């Protein structure tokens, strides 16, 4: 198949048909920030942080690069005044929930986001859905899901599934950008099946591989 030629940040880039703009950029080492994207998962298009400016046939539009397919002769700008503003406000909105999440702090520095701009609602979850989708698409266990809708949407472990499946997996902990998945799981465990993990470990001492759960040091909230 012939390559598609497009321009990203002034650079001529070759991509295969069916690739997304994000993939084309990554392949060229051009960085576009993401929060809900994971290479093992189907593109979600939820965090909107990877939004870029696309000029196509004289029209400028703002699209999420994790979903937008590459096309011949389009001109992509990964930074612009408007793109930066979108990212800044999105980060500010998310920091109302998770002010100390390391990824958000890095993004806030990059885009000049004020972590105190919006009223705090410390839910600690930014509802990126990585845990939910990872559990569904990669592990195919569906031990964690979304509940409710709109601003009330949250993730929740389903005790009946989690008690059977989570004790030797917990892979979602490592991909969670805020450590909330871990907290949510531990709370479910404490409420619904306390002590079960220890019990299973005692019964099957050889099986579990010791997994390091990286919890980054939380910076002091100002």
């Amino acid at each position: 198949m012939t390559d598609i030629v497009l321009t990203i940040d002034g650079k001529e880039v070759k991509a295969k048909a069916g690739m997304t703009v994000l993939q084309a950029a990554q392949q060229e080492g051009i960085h576009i920030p993401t929060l809900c994207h994971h290479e093992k998962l189907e593109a979600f298009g939820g965090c909107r942080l990877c939004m870029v400016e696309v000029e196509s046939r004289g029209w400028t539009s703002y699209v999420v690069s994790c979903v937008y397919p590459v096309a011949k002769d389009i001109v992509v700008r990964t930074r612009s005044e408007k793109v930066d503003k979108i990212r800044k406000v999105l980060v500010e909105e998310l920091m109302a929930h998770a002010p100390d999440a390391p990824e958000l702090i890095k993004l806030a520095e990059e885009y000049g986001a004020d972590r105190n701009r919006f009223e705090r609602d410390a839910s600690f979850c930014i509802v990126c859905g990585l845990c939910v989708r990872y559990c569904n698409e990669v592990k195919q266990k569906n031990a964690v899901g979304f509940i409710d809708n709109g601003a009330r949407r949250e993730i929740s472990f389903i005790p009946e599934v989690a008690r059977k499946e989570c004790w030797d997996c917990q892979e979602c902990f490592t991909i969670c950008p805020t450590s909330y998945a871990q907290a949510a799981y531990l709370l479910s465990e404490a409420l619904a099946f306390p002590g079960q993990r220890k019990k299973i470990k005692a019964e099957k001492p050889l099986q579990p591989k010791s997994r390091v759960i990286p919890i980054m040091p939380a910076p002091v909230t100002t």
Partner: protein
Amino acid sequence: MPKLHTAAELEKYRAEILASRDPAKPCIAVCAGAACDGMDSAAVAAAFVAAAGKLGDKIEVRTTGCHGYCEKGPNVVVTPGDICYFEVQPADVPDILAATLKGEVVERLVYKDPNTGAKAVHMNEVPFYKHQTRLLIGDNPKIDPMNIDDYFAVGGYAGLVKALTTMTPDQVLDEVKKANLRGRGGGGFPAGSKWETTRNAPEKTKYVIVNGHEGESAAFMDRAMLTGNPHKVLEGLIIGAYAIGAHKGFMYTRHDMPLLEKHVRNALAQAKEYGLLGTDILGSGFDFECELHFDVGIFVSGESSALMRSIEGNAPEPRPKYIRTSVNGIWDKPSNLNNVETWANVPQIINKGAEWFTSIGSEKSKGTKLISLSGNVVNSGIVEVPMGTPLRTLVFDIGGGVRDGKTLKAIHFGGAMGGSIPADLIDAPLDFDGMSKLGAPIGAGGLLLMDEDTDMIEVARYLMDFLVNESCGKCVPCREGMQQMLQILTRLTEGEGKKGDLELLEDLIEVTGTASLCALGKTSGDPLKSMFRYFKPEYESRIAGGSEAK
């Protein structure tokens, strides 16, 4: 009833129905639309049925869909003559029957002008009806929605017969394109082009969908249309399917309207029984089936890609539409979606032709538009006028002006994703593009009047509160941005506004509008935008002076 195998059989059957009906025999049509039903029109209908039964076969009683004049329900229309009786109670039934038998009119129940006291007996004299062009909803009083024969009697399925027997799919498509029928669901996108995209999509299996998920605040016309005359919508859908080359269709509607469900289920079953759905429809060789689907109770279900996810059996979450649903929709097959009113327009376009259709309306918006009229208006109800009609006609001639002698402050169109314009723009014509430019896009057609006492900030807060609850919550700008806007607006209504709030709102409107995944988030800031355009001083003074503007 045996299946109708050919167009000739259908026409013969229609002739038999008409021959069996005496046009001079009085018929009493009792409205069972949502508003009348709420005022217990069922009791009125029952009283008519009981009393008319004792008279032998002299008077027919028919329970129908919405007549339109919701304000004055329960509505009763007596034919011949289209005599309108308003606010009818079961106790009025004997008088109406007696007068009808004698060919007289019950004076006390007819329309009386609130200012002059002048009476209007016939439908075409009542001010609410007289200024309308009721091409779509006009049949409602003549039809029992549960009886397909009533639809045949008013010429139903003649458009389908014409399309299947005398036109190729391309000719049907051409006619709809020439008619410049624009989608009535909100966007005003040309239906013909959309059909063509789906028709030309390479994938062989194609779907057609009726979007009957009306959930916009202050919009209730699609419900009236689909509940009151389901066969008209179905006829449009079958014609569209023929043009597009789809053999499977879906009607997607709300789960919380039992009457609508009953009527649509019944209509689909009847159409199948008569051979208007199924294989080899009317001997044309064209096959088409239609399935009924329900939402799971949130507004975003009506967004086209979310709706299609829902039909697939998934949660109704929109997906990014960089490939249009008309090419890549339900199960990744080309899927053409139009709303109830758009489909309802199709039979008459085929029947009477594009030339006739384009003779109605404004330069770029053709045909009529159903409008739900509500708010501080004297006559609330469902109205149908030609596109291009000045808002003044809608508000004053038909709507009777503002309630309780108050002054008009603003006109709001398009529900929570629409906009408000001030009273001095009342001479603007009802037109897709014109109204969009003014900042109050017609949307699906919910028109809300607001009087001098209206607090615009409270209106914005109310609409935002609606959207926050109806969002799916998948994407950040919609989920978080709207919630932040709601919090700021709530503070403002409580007199707790701060300096910088307007700038904050403007930032949120911009980012939510650009970055949201679907139209719900993208247009969530539109009411606020229109208010900043026309009513900004109200916001500024509220912030400056706390609650003094209340």
